[in-house]
């Protein structure tokens, strides 16, 4: 079984007898051209939960959503909404509402008509429709725009109309397919909050698809990370950050992305060699049972400090080659003379690791690291400096599979 299932075992409150809001059971999806979009997806979403599907493009997150909506017919497995098997039902019969990336507003209908459409189809009487549309329009601040056609609206307004069309009836679930990706950054942040507030207010099960890990982290009660059609981990955002199931999740979550490099574990797991430096591992941080040899090490940029203190007691001498200021913090880029992580293990993870071969010789390979440091550090490009970190913040992954050996502390030991 995959790593996430063991996580699931220790995640409290999932299978405690409540009716699941949405349940994927062994859902497979293979397209006519032979490409596999989903591999045996098992996922249970609680009633009223806000779940985000995240992953790089092509990971299957949209396909999963479309199967849930009934827009795509899974080649295997079942889908249930509120305990009702909907696998063979069309989208019309599922009682779900969806917000599309392109908003998919009906361009030939006014805002009012767009909002009223789902209700009209249900044959509601005029008065009811008017009341409902007015309510939603009021809620989303669309009242002044009701007579306009979508073509005459700004991007943000269109997004609201699309939301409104989903909200206007009381569906079993909201499905959102990258609904904010066409908005500019400021608007995105604003809408992010608005959607979250709406969810809190309405309490309807929501599945939200995005490729943006920030959106996933900020919005999801729980986040499902997908890659190549396989579920990597389904967990609360903080746990994804601290205890990723594998190197892919580790590198996908967090910005700037986690620094990764090849390292070697010495005998008895007490010593690790990274970039020619031997780092002693305290007993609590030893990958016990792991044989000596190559291992992947990950250090989040936030784990570095410019000064030594109780937490940060391991030093690394670096030469910054680029310093970016974020105001309060600096992003200090430097090359580490260590072999980078094979691309295959991190592929398409937002190019979290960009290996640059300094020369053809493997021994002289270097890998790029970023340290996020307090702006007071006063480092300069080209001037050697020392950064500090703690072994508590090291993450170790299996060299061959990328599976997590050691997550950052404090942590629950993973069963291997």
């Amino acid at each position, binding site marked *: 079984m995959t790593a996430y299932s063991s996580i699931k075992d220790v995640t409290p409150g999932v299978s405690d007898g409540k009716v699941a809001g949405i349940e994927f059971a062994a859902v497979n999806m293979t397209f006519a051209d032979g490409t596999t979009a989903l591999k045996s997806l098992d996922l249970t979403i609680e009633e009223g939960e806000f779940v985000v599907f995240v992953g790089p493009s092509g990971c299957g997150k949209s396909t999963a959503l479309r199967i849930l909506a009934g827009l795509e017919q899974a080649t295997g497995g079942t889908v249930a909404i509120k305990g009702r098997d909907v696998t063979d039902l069309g989208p019309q019969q599922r009682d779900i509402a969806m917000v599309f990336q392109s908003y998919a507003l009906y*361009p030939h209908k006014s805002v009012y008509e767009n909002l009223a459409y789902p209700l009209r189809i249900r044959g509601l009487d005029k008065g009811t429709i008017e009341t409902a549309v007015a309510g939603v329009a009021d809620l989303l601040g669309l009242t002044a725009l009701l007579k306009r056609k979508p*073509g005459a609206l700004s991007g943000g307004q269109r997004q609201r109309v699309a939301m409104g069309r989903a909200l206007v009836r009381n569906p079993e679930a909201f499905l959102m397919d990258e609904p904010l990706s*066409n908005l500019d950054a400021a608007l995105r942040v604003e809408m992010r909050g608005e959607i979250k507030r709406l969810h809190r207010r309405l309490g309807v099960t929501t599945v939200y698809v995005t490729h943006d890990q920030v959106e996933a982290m900020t919005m999801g009660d729980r986040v499902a990370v997908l890659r190549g059609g396989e579920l990597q981990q389904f967990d609360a955002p903080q746990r994804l950050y601290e205890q990723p199931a594998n190197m892919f999740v580790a590198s996908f979550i967090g910005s700037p992305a986690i620094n990764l490099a090849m390292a070697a574990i010495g005998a008895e797991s007490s010593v690790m060699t990274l970039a020619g430096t031997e780092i002693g591992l305290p007993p609590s941080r030893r990958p016990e049972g792991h044989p000596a040899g190559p291992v992947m090490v990950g250090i989040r940029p936030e784990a570095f400090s410019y000064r030594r203190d109780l937490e940060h007691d391991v030093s690394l001498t670096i030469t910054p080659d680029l310093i970016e200021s974020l105001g309060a913090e600096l992003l200090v880029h430097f090359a580490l003379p260590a072999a980078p992580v094979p691309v295959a293990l991190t592929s398409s993870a937002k190019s979290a690791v960009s290996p640059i071969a300094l020369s053809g010789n493997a021994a002289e390979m270097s890998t790029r690291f970023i340290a996020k440091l307090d702006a007071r550090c006063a480092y300069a490009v080209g001037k050697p400096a020392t950064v500090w970190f703690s072994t508590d913040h090291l993450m170790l992954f299996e060299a061959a599979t990328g599976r997590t050996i050691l997550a950052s502390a404090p942590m629950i030991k993973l069963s291997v």
Partner: protein
Amino acid sequence: MPQNLKRFSFTRRTATAMLLGAAAATALPGMGMAQEQVTLQAIFLPATWGVVVRDVLAPQYEKETGVKVDVQLVGRDAIHEKMATLFAAQDPSFDIFNLDYSWIPEFGAGGHLLPLDDLLSEDDKADLFKTALEVGSWNGTLYGLPQTIHPHVLWYRADLYADPEVQAAYKAKTGSDLAPPTTMAEWLQQAAYFNGTQYEGQTIYGWAAQAAKGFGNVHTWLTFLYGYGGSAFNEDFSASTLSTPEAIAATKQWAEMMKYMPPGSSAFTYDDVTTSAQQGTVATALQWSWGAFAVDDPASSKTVGDWQFVEVPAVEAGGQSHPHLASWVISVSKYSKHADEAKKFTAWLETKANDVLQASLGGGDPVRASSYSDPTLTEAKLEGSDVLRFRRYDVVLKAMQNTKPRPFFPGEEAWETVVSGPLQAIQLGEKSVEDGLAEADAAVDRLLSR
């Protein structure tokens, strides 16, 4: 993506299209005619005789008998196409057809037409031109009742030929007196003389005749071929005989004459010849007798009353020409559901009275010899002048005695098409007469082998 959607956000008017459809549906033209009354469906050529039948005789027939005849006017090729299709399907949609006689063999042999022998009394048979009856029959059975005949006759500009100045100039140039030609040599000389001269402010040319690809050039050339004693086929139509000395001589004369036609003549069809005559741009013309009405129509002609008609010149002085015959007949489809009514109408169209009536109304030339002496016709004059309207009739009667039909066998229409190409190569100087005719021979023999 929003850009993508934007392309769809403009006003639409599907309703317009729907309304248009609805409007058209209500304006649905009369379908499903009442079937109590017998209605005959007929196809005629949009020539004057077809127009006369449609506009005058058919309505009159309906008044007299209660039988309605729906006459559709369709071009020559279209009639042939239509008959081919209808007959292939044994379709009864049409009862009566107006046929070029050269189709009688193919449709007669194909068994698609009804015998009409019983329509004619002995008197009728004696009165109708013998040649016309012959070309309406196949294997001794009459399939097409003649409606009009018109042999080739030679047209000449009487006013031009009578002009003393022109006469004097001609004499000065050629040493001969200017008179309507009686021999091919004279005609050639006159055509050559007139070609390119100026008369009454416009350039005139030697002569005009059909010369276009298809049937046009073949029809003109046949009059030459027959005049020189040539024949297109051997007795049983099993071999083409276009390389005989007679055929070569005829074709040479014809090709020589072609040089004295107006520019563009190689595409001349019947209407172009008529136009040339109407506009007075040619001195002579080889044209169907009947077409003379067109030059006497003041609405479209500048030469009203100016044209006169003589027999086609003979090869040698004192000899006899053999003009090529044109004739249109009326046939009844074997698949007609109202065969008897159709035959009755056909017979009625060609009673003596109606033969004359058709001619007097401006239809085709009569098919009964006796009609040619009917005073209604012989005494008719052009409006506002003393010129006789049917002044051509004497010449037509003479021509009818020596006229010859097209090769009368089932493949005539295809044959015309096949020889037309090589003949045009000759007339355009692309091929020598001998080579062209040899090629025509080969092509015809190939056709026969199909």
